[in-house]
């Protein structure tokens, strides 16, 4: 599968949030690096089909981002996402399974499987409002994986995770990247250092560098910081 982002632009009244960015992604993990306000979230929202670009096109194997069939391929975890406090983890995932068009029996199986995968099966029947920040984040990650997405867009997915959970998450992403396109945004370099095949760096809405990790000279963090000088 090829995910094409072609001269994507998002212009707000007083700000150019994303400035004619182009890249292609195939199966594997791509890290999207950039400081706060670089335009990563705006880009990811456009790639998730929830924000209309001012210009440019996004498509996956020719399927435009606005198409329903694109959303069928997509798993999306926003930055700072919400939940329903009175829903249990199980209800939360079953609800999102319905949103993703997964029929009831399969939804129950997949919910159980994912709760196990993210380490929440013991608290499946508990209300999400009782969860810690890390537990909520894991529920969010599980939600993004419900429909076995071919395109997985994760916006700051490791926020709130403790170091052990971070390592576990990286292993999961690495595994997913074997068969899916994974785009993961972060401003924590170590999150992607060991798992990303490709890196895209953004600054002030523009793409400042893209390439394979192997093309990075020396330490990734130093390379990244140099780009922002």
């Amino acid at each position: 599968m090829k995910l094409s982002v072609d001269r994507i632009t998002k212009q707000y009244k007083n700000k150019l949030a994303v400035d004619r960015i182009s890249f292609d992604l195939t199966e594997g993990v791509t890290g999207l690096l950039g400081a706060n306000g670089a335009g990563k979230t705006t880009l990811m929202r456009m790639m998730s089909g929830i924000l209309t670009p001012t210009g440019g096109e996004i498509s996956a194997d020719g399927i435009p981002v606005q198409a329903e069939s694109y959303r069928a391929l997509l798993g999306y975890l926003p930055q700072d996402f919400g939940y329903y406090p009175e829903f249990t983890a199980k209800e939360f995932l079953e609800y999102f399974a319905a949103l993703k068009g997964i029929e009831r029996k399969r939804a129950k199986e997949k919910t159980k499987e994912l709760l196990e995968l993210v380490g929440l099966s013991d608290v499946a029947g508990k209300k999400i409002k009782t969860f810690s920040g890390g537990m909520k984040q894991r529920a969010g990650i599980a939600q993004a994986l419900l429909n076995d997405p071919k395109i997985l867009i994760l916006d700051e997915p490791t926020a709130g995770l403790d170091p052990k959970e971070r390592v576990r998450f990286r292993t999961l992403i690495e595994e997913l990247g074997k068969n899916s396109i994974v785009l993961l945004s972060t401003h924590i370099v170590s999150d992607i250092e060991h798992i990303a095949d490709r890196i895209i760096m953004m600054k002030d809405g523009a793409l400042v560098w893209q390439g394979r990790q192997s093309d990075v000279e020396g330490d990734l963090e130093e390379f990244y910081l140099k780009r922002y000088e």
Partner: protein
Amino acid sequence: MKKNRCFGALYKFELLKILKNKVAVIAFLIFFIFGFVQGEFEVRGNIDPDTLKEHMTLDGRILDDQLLGEWVAVTDEYGEVTDEKNIAYETLTEWIKDIAGYGVVLEDINESRLYEERLKIIDEAYADSYLDEGEIEYWKAQEETLEKPFVWKDSFISFGLQNGVSNTIIIMMLVISVSLSTSFSAETQRKTDPMIRASINGGKETYFAKILAGTTYSFVTVILYLGIFVGYVAIKWGLSGMDALEQVIYPCTQMKLTVGETTFILILLTVLGSLLLSTATMFVSCLLRNGMGTMGIIVGGYFGLFALGTSVPMHMKTLSKICCLLPPTQISPRLVYEFRLFKIAGHYFRSYQVAGASYVIISAALLVIGYFLYKRYEIKSN
């Protein structure tokens, strides 16, 4: 590959969101209890329940000179019942005064004078309502269908029942505004809308699941409440008087409706009015994406429309007629006193007929417009 809409599951979860809203549950429970309270006090007010049966002693009597003669005998010159033993004549007193006037000497009242006074009041109402010739002809034809003299049935219970039913709409407005104001806004305020909109069923299916869940909640709540209230009245006080003409409560109406039929009209308008309120609330929630703002608009708008409906002068015929169709002003037992008609395709329709149909039409329009708003809504930042 065919898309699995999972509409049933989405509907179930949208209902769950409403039912898990603590404020909505508390409002519903208060409403539920209020049904019993209203059933008790709306009918009897402050009077002793045992005296209610005595009020019905005159039921079935013809409102003629004989009954009026008896009434004069047990009342003073101004029509007040002088002895507690004659409590059955109290409601009749109010009925006669509604026609003949308050604070006037009534000791020489008779059948012919009473019915003439009634027609004089109706003629004044025609003038006050700025009726045209066609409308007047319509009502005169209706008058011909009424069997006179009227048969008396005490309206203590039926008056309370109709008032209680018509009060339901204001309570529903409060319950609906509290329970459904967050139907769309919560997704924005909770920051769940990016994940929803990025899902294959996050568009049309989610919108209609929310609408169906909201209208289901509203429908079940209003039916349950009316069931409790009417059921309580029926069991505690009985439903006597339902077969009497509405003229026993509102003497100057010319509509040939029984008390039961008028009560049914009020119930139907309350259900349809609740449908309108729920679709309006969800529409505003979708538009504003703010729960408190939505509640403010619905509650403020309701009372504002009531004020508008009662203050627009009658000579502004079209505006006044339209304002009177709205739930705050229309859903009242006094709809039987609305003489103004709507001429549609050469036929005259009464305001309650047009009101009911318009609530359904406006609800449908709000649903359609709301859908386009929902589709076009962009999640810019959360």
